[in-house]
């Protein structure tokens, strides 16, 4: 009888910890291996470098977590990041808006793009894969249209996002703050909890009175906002908005969320997991660079890691549910 309760064990259950934190354990092992393999891994500058590297993908993946928890997928985030970076700078440098408005304009572009994707899938009944795939192309196209295919220099407020605040780079500060914010919204707000219900069982959520369509639109707006932030960090670091900025990043963001333990069928996901997933990807890239592995081989390794990480997770779930 399933009601037979296992008495909660006092103290630390190492096996359960391993089972629930596979990605974290993997990350620790990875770091240890790199620490042994190369003295250049565990140095202040290298760790800051990883922090900066991880920030763009992680911030984007935070937003993606909401969409995946709600059983959707957002392929448009890379393009949205580019349009937001481009639009925010264009508004200041070309249209003459005050510099302080650059970031709000960028965020608004992200939110609006997300809203369109969400509305297409919630009200237009397009699968999220298709709606966001369409937006991937449309938004990238718009970026090329306004930039005429050329990079433009960023507004100074956007550049600030790529600078340092004292000894700490701004991207890392934004990473931490936006991560905490995302975790709070996902776990504490009605909106966040609703996305779990919608992703876990849309029909049950609807019959409980949860506004399913509104939830679906909102997760895409959130995803768009985080993508915009991520794009502006990237542009800030480069001091210019490239029309090809962040292209292909959507796949890394999805990989980070999934390595972090979220289920693509919805209803399961954690912001902390997503951060770990993004760190796994960044540390592997960094380590392979330090070990002078060619960029071509890196792609092979990253792909294999994604398959292995998710494979382990599938096995684990299978063992949990008998």
């Amino acid at each position, binding site marked *: 009888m399933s009601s037979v*309760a296992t008495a909660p064990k006092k103290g630390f259950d190492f096996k359960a910890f391993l089972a629930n934190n596979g990605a974290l354990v993997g990350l620790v092992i990875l770091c240890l291996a790199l620490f042994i393999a190369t003295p250049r891994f565990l140095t202040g500058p290298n760790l800051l470098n990883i922090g900066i590297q991880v920030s763009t993908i992680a911030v984007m993946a935070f937003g993606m977590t909401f969409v995946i928890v709600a059983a959707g997928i957002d392929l448009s985030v890379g393009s949205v990041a580019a349009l937001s970076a481009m639009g925010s700078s264009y508004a200041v440098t070309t249209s003459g808006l005050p510099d302080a408005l650059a970031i709000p304009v960028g965020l608004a572009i992200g939110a609006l793009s997300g809203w369109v994707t969400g509305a297409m899938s919630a009200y237009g009944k397009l699968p999220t894969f298709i709606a966001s795939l369409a937006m991937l192309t449309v938004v990238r196209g718009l970026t090329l249209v306004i930039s005429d295919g050329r990079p433009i220099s960023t507004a100074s407020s956007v550049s600030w996002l790529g600078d340092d605040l004292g000894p700490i780079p701004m991207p890392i500060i934004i990473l931490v703050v936006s991560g905490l914010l995302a975790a709070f919204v996902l776990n504490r*707000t009605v909106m966040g909890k609703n996305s779990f219900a919608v992703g876990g069982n849309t029909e049950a959520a609807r019959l*409980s009175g949860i506004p399913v369509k509104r939830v679906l639109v909102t997760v895409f707006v959130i995803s768009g906002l985080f993508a915009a932030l991520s794009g502006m960090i990237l542009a800030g670091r480069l001091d210019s908005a490239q029309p090809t900025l962040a292209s292909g990043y959507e796949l890394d963001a999805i990989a980070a969320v999934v390595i972090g333990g979220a289920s693509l069928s919805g209803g399961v996901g954690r912001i902390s997991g997503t951060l770990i997933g993004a760190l796994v990807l960044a540390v592997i890239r960094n380590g392979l660079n330090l070990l002078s592995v060619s960029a071509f081989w890196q792609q092979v390794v990253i792909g294999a890691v994604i398959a292995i990480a998710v494979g382990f997770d599938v096995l684990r779930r299978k063992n949990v549910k008998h």
Partner: protein
Amino acid sequence: MSNDALLVLDKVCKSFGPVQVIEDVTVEVYAGKVSVLLGENGAGKSTLIKMIAGVHEPDAGQILFKGQPVRIRDTKTSEALGIATIHQELNLVPSMTIAENITLGRVPRKFGIINRREMRKIARDALAKLELDLDVNTPVGELGLAQQQLVEIAKALSLDARVLILDEPTAALTTTEIEHLFRVVNQLKTQGVGMVFISHHLDEIAAIGDYVNVLRDGKFIATVPADTDENELVRLMVGRDIDAQFPRVATDVSGQPLLTVEHLSEGALKDISLQIRPGEVVALAGLMGAGRTELIRAIAGADKYASGTVKVSGKKLTSYDVAAATRAGIGHVPEDRKTQGLVLDASVAENIGYATMAATAKNGLVDRKGQKARAQKVAERLRIRMGSIDAPIRSLSGGNQQKAVFGRWFTAGAKVLLLDEPTRGVDVGAKVEIYELINEITASGGCVLMASSELPEVLGMSDRILVMSQGRIAGELSTKEATQDAIMALAISNVHREEEMGIK
């Protein structure tokens, strides 16, 4: 006597982690006999079946096939031994034809190309064994559930199955369909097929079974003849006497109608009007497809309706708005708790809390402590048996899951409960507890509209019966004067002659 048994599970045990699910259980299956497996949900029936099917291996004890010990490592081994399981969820591909489904995975070939003629022949032979008259070129998706089930049985037989396990095959069938299934089972008996039959319907046991193996909490309780008295079977299964299978306590019906439906029409529903007063339980009876579920869903705001009104306490509700219906005090326990009622990955507390989460939130933040406390309270009140309030709801038995859906609406303070097959797939003990919840709602001034396909439940738990037929309310009966025959007469009353022909 085990010498001539086809299949014997000899003192098998199985644990999952610290939980012992099966302890020293012995079950024997004889050629040409139907062995009924009886037990409440969670008694270990499905684990036992999975051992036979090769999904789980026993930790201790052994499995004998025709007297020889065998290890059933996986489903392939089980199939090779001639064991077939017909699950509630059928393993058919809806878009493929009957012939393609029956030969799935072993398509007859000629020069490497599919031999369609041979394929149809295999399928026709398989259907003929069951005296089924179906066109083998029909896509399976176009068949009704009952026929799909028979196709699956035909498929198993064409694989030379000698042992057939039927896991609650009658759960979703109408009376006529059940009769047909039983005819097929009896025929298989004469062909020497040994069968294991699982059902929650006690009245079916005597009709189809030869003997009954009773399980309780993973332990073997007794083997008794199939014609054992129903009350005795319940006592063996539950381990205590259940005073009444239908403990309806009628309450005074008074005051203004709580739920009023006027001239509601939409697609299959035609001009439905009804009123339910506080304290009343009204049952919706009728054949499958009569529109009971459609009506419940329309009232609950789950589906649109074209015309008509729904009022709660005289206040009109907007159509197709679950949130508005919920605020007005409607609670909807849907037909299928797994696909419509619960978020299986979420905890018991979360599942109970979905209807109150937004209403109790402050500044958009979930009232986590309050939600948990309310869930805990209602879980205790409804006696939901669970590991903890934070346990995933999928770890609960069917009856307890169903009680959690009730708990959701109890917490939300629903006054009008719309129940769609409230005890489907729920065992006897939990059934009675759910009936007691219905009594509780009416005693506190609420009302219940209950759609049910089980006539004993309709007769036992309602005050008034509305019989639906082809989307209309064909008539009303007071429960005191209603009989199964009277209900059935109304249920088929509007059926047009030509459509009746079509059914046959």
